[in-house]
């Protein structure tokens, strides 16, 4: 077995971190010591084998899931955003102004003008959250309840705008134009499910991109617990 000093010279040479004096010393030793030479060859082969292990592509949804989680960590803190319902009124106002188009698609839902509203105090309670990953839409959707109303908070990331059909308690509504993309930065969007019963068993979500359904998710309502 080579002494530690000489062994270190071999390792440093393989790693390209040996200076000229070290290389000369190593060469002299290896000329005089066939075992040392064989050891260096072994270690070289090992390092070549280690270096040749191919890198693996990360899961496709990794980047999307990281970006989807961003508004809840870095971005919100840097901008001193207050997450959640304090902005519900503002967002709902934007919704009502037409930035997000709501369209009743079936069921005895309320008139479009009644679908959204503000949710101020008391503070809404989180009922359920669903994480989305592994598909073209990632992020999360949370269901809240505030006294006699339900609300959904969408925090989605996708390659193009997402429409979501929300169905619960015999009512349906479509929320259009959701999701942050690389080209468009959007904060989480909150929608009040005005006219929906509050004691629903489940809230079903169907995610559409370009008019085609790309995924579904289900949230448990407070009536389902």
């Amino acid at each position, binding site marked *: 077995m080579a002494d530690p000093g000489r062994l270190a010279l071999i390792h440093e040479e393989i790693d390209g971190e040996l200076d000229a004096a070290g290389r000369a010393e190593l060469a002299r030793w290896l000329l005089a010591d066939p075992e040392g030479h064989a050891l260096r060859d*072994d270690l070289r082969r090992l390092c070549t084998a280690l270096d040749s292990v191919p890198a693996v592509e990360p899961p496709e949804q990794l980047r999307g899931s990281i970006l989807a989680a961003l508004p809840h960590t870095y971005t919100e803190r840097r*901008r001193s955003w207050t997450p959640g319902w304090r902005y519900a009124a503002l967002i709902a106002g934007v919704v009502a102004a037409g930035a997000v188009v709501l369209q009743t698609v079936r069921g005895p839902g309320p008139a479009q003008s009644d679908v959204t509203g503000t949710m101020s105090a008391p503070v809404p309670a989180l009922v359920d959250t669903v994480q989305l990953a592994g598909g073209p839409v990632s992020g999360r959707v949370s269901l809240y309840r505030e006294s006699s109303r339900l609300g959904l908070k969408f925090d989605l990331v996708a390659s193009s705008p997402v429409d979501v059909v929300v169905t619960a308690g015999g009512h349906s509504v479509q929320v259009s134009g959701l999701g942050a993309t690389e080209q468009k930065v959007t904060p989480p969007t909150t929608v009040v499910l005005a006219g929906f019963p509050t004691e629903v068993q489940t809230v079903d979500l169907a995610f559409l991109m370009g008019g085609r359904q790309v995924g579904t998710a289900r949230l448990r309502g407070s009536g389902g617990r």
Partner: protein
Amino acid sequence: MSEDADCTLVRRCREGDRRACGELVLRYQKPVYNAALRLLRNPDDARDVAQTAFMKVFEHLADYDPRYKFYSWIYRIAVNEALDTLGSRKSFEEIPDDAADEAAGPDRLLEGEQTTRAIEDALSRIKPELRSVIVLRHFMHLSYQDMSDILQLPEKTVKSRLYDARQLLRSALLQRGTVSHG
């Protein structure tokens, strides 16, 4: 990775530019995920570690000192996160330290996927602190100095661990015929 480009992206991220955050993830998700995967040998755990590491990076971006290399910082976070996960498992089968003297394998060289599997197997059986130096050196191709910065250890300790790790891997792989005697 260009350090200037990293600095620009970090600055833009700090200003709340979400697109820059996305570019940082794109630049580093592969090495971070691979480091975690080689340390943990479990794709699900590696994905979780990578996600947590990025979350910590963005959460503490205001604390990052741009005088230092960004990749050293993010790799340190990722490696520490992976080692924490590994520490919670405590279930690796260690290669005995004296195995190097007993090694005597056949004169043949396994190739391709067999070699990769044999390396992964041998790697999973050495101590995490030795595994981490192999990952940084051979899978992330970092210098002794960078490894020292990332692991926050003296360079001498890094080298000592690297040499010990190689000796253990060599003996394990010789026994399996993955690297041949010369």
